[in-house]
């Protein structure tokens, strides 16, 4: 029988003993009761070894979430005692309808590859132990999957503890990673990518960071409860602004060869026959109107169609497309 098995057995017995007592039991009383703590109390070295062992066991139980209370039963007790109150220990009754259980299963699966996986599965284990049946494959009609991002759990723990973090970050314009300090407010999955939003203490302003650009690990720094969250917190909005770049709305008019550029036509505000003859075919150009929010992205897209799409206006867009095409032709 291995040491760890004997230790596990002792810990289970300790939990049962502390749960079964109403009085606070002193370490000495526990040593005389729970198997595995037997020792000669009069031998200082043995007694010290027991005390170290008992401290470690208590710490392990508390780490697991067992609420070990410390106190004395009577004013005449000189030594502190320990007990576990059933009402603090036990998960309260929880009855979940089948679709609610499916929802919980879905929530746990969400973390499978995105941090928090072990916390989610141990939570599920406890709910099952409370009598809930979770079909691990049940869905609510839609099966959500998110990409793995190991930093998510560290960041969520930091948000929960209101603790700052430090990480090396390489922004889209940085050559080398730069160490950043952030008071994280929350984590966002935006367009399938993970971000953290918070107060950048180096820059003295709100900032968003894309987690895929974090080099190495995210480390918690400083004390817990170091900051408070802003009252009005729009995490999605913060990331959308961060990634949205220019918010230069507009409409472009382009000429499109008949039958070409299906993707452009799908999202178009209007498609009309222009009547202008196409120089190289017997057909006439179609006039297509497209709305845009990011002129740079639209220029890339229009240039991608080559001669199938010719920009009429606005002039800056027309110039940008020609610039793209010329750069390629001159290479």
């Amino acid at each position, binding site marked *: 029988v291995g040491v760890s098995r004997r*230790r596990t*057995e002792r810990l*289970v017995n300790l939990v*049962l003993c502390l749960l*079964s007592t109403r009085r606070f039991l002193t370490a000495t009383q526990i040593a005389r009761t729970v198997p595995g703590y037997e020792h000669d109390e009069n031998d200082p070295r043995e007694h010290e070894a027991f005390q170290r062992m008992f401290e470690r066991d208590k710490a*392990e139980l508390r*780490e*697991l979430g067992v*609420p070990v209370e410390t106190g004395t039963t009577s004013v005449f007790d000189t030594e502190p005692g320990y007990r576990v109150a059933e009402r603090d*220990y036990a*998960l*309260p*009754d929880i*009855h979940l*309808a089948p*679709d609610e259980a499916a*929802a*919980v299963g879905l*929530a*746990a699966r*969400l*973390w499978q590859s995105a941090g*928090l996986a072990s*916390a989610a*599965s*141990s*939570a599920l*284990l*406890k709910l099952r*132990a*409370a*009598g809930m049946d979770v079909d691990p494959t049940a869905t*609510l*009609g839609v*099966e*959500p*999957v998110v990409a793995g991002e190991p930093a*998510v759990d560290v960041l*969520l*723990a930091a*948000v*929960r503890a209101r603790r700052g973090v430090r990480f090396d970050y390489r922004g889209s314009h940085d*050559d080398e990673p730069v160490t950043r300090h952030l008071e994280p407010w*929350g984590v*966002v*999955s*935006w*367009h399938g*990518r993970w971000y953290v939003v918070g107060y950048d203490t180096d820059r003295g302003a709100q900032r968003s960071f894309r987690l895929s650009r974090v080099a190495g690990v995210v480390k918690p720094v400083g004390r817990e409860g170091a900051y408070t969250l802003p009252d009005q917190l729009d995490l999605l909005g913060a990331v959308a602004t961060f990634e949205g770049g220019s918010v230069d709305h507009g409409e472009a008019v382009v000429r499109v060869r008949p039958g070409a*550029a299906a*993707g452009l036509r799908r999202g178009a505000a209007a498609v009309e026959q222009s009547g202008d003859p196409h*120089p190289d075919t017997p057909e006439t150009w179609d006039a297509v109107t497209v709305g845009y929010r990011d002129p740079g992205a639209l220029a890339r897209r*229009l*240039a991608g169609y*080559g*001669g199938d799409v*010719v920009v009429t206006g606005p002039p800056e867009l027309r110039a940008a497309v*020609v610039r793209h*095409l010329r750069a*390629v032709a001159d290479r």
Partner: protein
Amino acid sequence: MSATDRLGRLLAVVPYLLARPGIRVADAAGDLGVTEQQLRDDLQLLFLCGLPGYGPGDLIDMVLDEETVTITFDAGMSRPLRLTADEALALVVALRALAEVPGMGGGGALERALAKLESAAGDAAAEAGRVSVRMDTDASVQGRTDGERLTVVRGAVDRGRALRITYYTAARDATTERVVDPIRVLLVEGRTYLEAWCRGAEAVRRFRLDRIDAATELDEPSAPPPGAGGGDVTGGVFQPEPGDPAVTLRLARRARWVAEYYPCEKAEEEPDGATIVTLRTGDLGWARRLVLGLGADAEVLDPPELADAVRSAAESALKYYPDQPV
């Protein structure tokens, strides 16, 4: 597995079995996420644990045979331990994030489950209440049309009916009509997909909901071949085929987003900040459009016919801009 993990499991095993008298050991092991042998080891250990006195009437007792197990004395371990703050956080935050995703549906099950969990978790959940995870999806951006399409597509999945869809394929820049046998609806990395058997292609395809231009439920059953679909999509919805041609590009720093946006087989950085990426595409026309659009920021290193195609496309396109100064 650590000793702490095992202890956590042991504290859950007794109440779990208590709630399910006569359960098959193999089924219990599957639910608890361990092998049958591990569970039998756990039970052997629990047999030796009990209440002070540790006599025959004090120890945890159970009827364990080849097949099944029934707890007959729980020694006071009738309920699982409360959720820790981390456990409550994991479930509460995920439920809340999912409940806010438009089109998730579920008839309020997410919200109801959330309320029950929050009340059962108590203080642990209160801490989780201060942590936000938000997920956006295409449905939240694109609004009503996609919402209606999602209703049609989910209806077909629920009722097990085939669908006729008009679908835009970005790789070929073409819209086609096809009949598909729906398998499931996926929400992967913020986008909604219909996974279905495409009768024309005779293969499983994942259709982006925002590229389904029309969908009609047919009066015939959805009949994908047995075993089709249901695969793991955590590595991405689109896995390039190994036989697809490889394209190697040199991307200037300004075009580094390409390496983050498209699944690349290789991405190596050069001393000057440029990145050399290799990606696979079933359609060189797609690659030509990508490179043309990147202009000065991308150079085709391989294959040479792509480099030629890109250059000649740019040259012939420039003929339509006679007024633009060189």
